[in-house]
């Protein structure tokens, strides 16, 4: 199938006083049409910056230094900003982590959804309201006729996220980027929202990039998983492949740190392991492989240079000297 999004060697740096923070350096991946890519990693590993780079929402002091982002064959980084603006929310849409904060508290949700439609679609005024109602119904905000007049503070977190999703899909986007859409929600609502994504994908047929740090959630929806560490993708493979056969020590460590079952009473040992150490500071990354200070398999070679991103098994890409 054809690639809807293809990122080549993306570098996004932030220039702060005295130091350069290399939030994303050398990220390359592609997403096929209809796929769901799970972008997984710890906090501050560059997931959100990658997403913002795709949307070209990096504001100074940040800058996309190098790289190409092909969306439907067109390099987004070469588009003029008005062209890019028309693309945002229309062809590529984005959902944020804090739904309550992402809605403007001064306007009704109806107004905000309608604003989206008005900006991107050339349809008559009388058609906008039914369309907004239809969207609200599709995302499960009930009853839409009443809720459409609500202000964001009238909504619960889950409902607000549904409204955000309604806004994001209002123009039938080809690509939807969800930046930790369920992090601010509790577990039951998480499950509902995930279900909603699955259902909407059937109805609207969009490609999804799902950013999360929750591997379980990722395994639910993703067809393909990319693991990020220190601003780079360390492993990329189809979901089943990566879950059964993780190659990168970081991925393996991540999987073994998933709690399995509840630790019983005071009997002592919880059954999951912790990855020792912390994510390296983005402005002073270690030499060699960024993961080597925390890696249990490290060798001499790991401290010398960054391992190349290689296809160790069919469709299974990894950057580790120990793999393959």
């Amino acid at each position, binding site marked *: 199938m054809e690639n809807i999004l293809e990122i080549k060697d993306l570098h996004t740096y932030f220039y702060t006083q005295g130091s350069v923070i290399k939030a994303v350096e050398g990220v390359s991946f592609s997403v096929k049409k209809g796929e769901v890519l799970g972008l997984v990693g710890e906090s501050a590993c560059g997931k959100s910056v990658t997403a913002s780079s795709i949307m070209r929402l990096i504001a100074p002091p940040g800058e996309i230094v190098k790289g190409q982002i092909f969306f439907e064959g067109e390099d987004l980084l070469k588009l003029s900003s008005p062209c890019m603006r028309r693309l945002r929310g229309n062809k590529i849409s984005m959902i944020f982590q804090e739904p309550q904060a992402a809605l403007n508290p001064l306007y009704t949700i109806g107004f905000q959804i309608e604003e989206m439609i008005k900006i*991107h679609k050339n349809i008559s005024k009388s058609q906008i309201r039914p369309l907004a109602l239809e969207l609200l119904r599709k995302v499960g905000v009930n*009853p839409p006729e009443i809720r459409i007049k609500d202000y964001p503070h009238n909504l619960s977190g889950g409902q607000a996220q549904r409204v955000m999703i309604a806004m994001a899909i209002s123009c039938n986007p080809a690509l939807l980027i969800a930046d930790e859409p369920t992090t601010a929600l509790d577990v039951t609502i998480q499950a509902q929202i995930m279900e909603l994504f699955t259902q909407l994908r059937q109805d609207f047929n969009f490609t999804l990039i799902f950013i999360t740090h929750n591997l379980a959630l990722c395994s639910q929806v993703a067809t393909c998983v990319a693991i990020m560490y220190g601003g780079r993708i360390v492993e990329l493979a189809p979901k089943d492949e990566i879950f059964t056969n993780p190659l990168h020590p970081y991925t393996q460590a991540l999987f073994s740190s998933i709690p399995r079952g509840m630790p019983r009473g005071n009997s002592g040992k919880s059954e999951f392991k912790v990855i020792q150490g912390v994510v390296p500071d983005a402005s002073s990354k270690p030499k060699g492989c960024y993961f080597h200070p925390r890696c249990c398999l490290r060798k001499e070679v790991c401290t010398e240079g960054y391992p190349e991103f290689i296809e160790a098994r069919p469709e299974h890409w990894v950057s580790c000297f120990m793999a393959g």
Partner: protein
Amino acid sequence: MQTANCKIKRPTNTGFRKLRRHKLAMISFYVLVFLYASAIFAGFIAPYHFDNENRVLSYAPATKIYFFNEGKISRPFVYLTSYRFDEFYNRVYRQDKSKKYFLKFFMRGDDYRIFGLFKTNVHLFGVEGEARIYLLGADSRGRDLFSRIFYGGQVSLSIGLVGVLISLIIGVFIGGISGYFSGRIDNIIMRACEIIMAIPGFYLMLALRSIFSYSLTSVQIYFLIVLIMSFIGWPGIARVVRGMALSLREREFVLAAKALGVPDAKIILRHIIPHTFSYVIVAATLSIPGYILGESALSLLGLGIQDPYASWGNLLSESMAIAQIKFHPWILIPGVFIFITVMAFNLLGDGLRDVSDPKMPK
């Protein structure tokens, strides 16, 4: 589904309810409503046209109104005022008690227009015949000060509102643009603001006034004053709005709006500027007195509204000589009106600020 029946709370409603409990602010609010209403209906309240003069009665004191006639209660009436010269050739006014002139309500007198549209000649009160009623005394040309104060209020009170409105519009837009785009645009705009703010306002006002011709019609002068005052006033507002915009642009809903393809202009107008309103309303209320005082100052110096048109400032200009105040203290009364208005706006502004402060207990 409960929301079906109960009214949805709009963010703006709660503010007014809180203001209700602020006594001083509410009193000020009603004082201002009264003053503005009196300015709108100046023609009706005033017994005479602002330019209706009677030079015989130059600096005539306030006319006495009698409610009793030979010990009995009667319709209020006045006597005709006449004068003679004393040994220093000062006018001494006395009442000619030979004939009574009764006060009449809804009397027909000088023509005027309400809202500049409806022509009429009905006044709230007046006296018939050759007698004149001066509730607050007369000015040098024998014009009724009471009437002239209300006509003057039209200018003085409206200049504050119009001036603030214009500088608000300029300040909010420029501040919003400056804060939202930041970087070089921000730098240029803010330096320009600082240049204007660095020059003392009053001298800048005089300097700007002197650029324009001295002989202008009063309408031209009116707009000129508004323009000058707005030009001086916008940078202060722009600076604060810019600061708010700088923090607002980092808010997630602005980022979300950007991510969903809302154009920059719309983000500034819809998502940034409305969030600065709570500040802007307070700032506007608190800066109106500055405009009223500015106009008064210009008119006082004879650079503003010109005779025969009245404004509170140019009414006061007669009182610049100490001798005038000594012999005719009532010509200071327009100053009382300025004082009351300025106080009322300040107290109302304080109240609004308390209300809009989220740290205030509800």
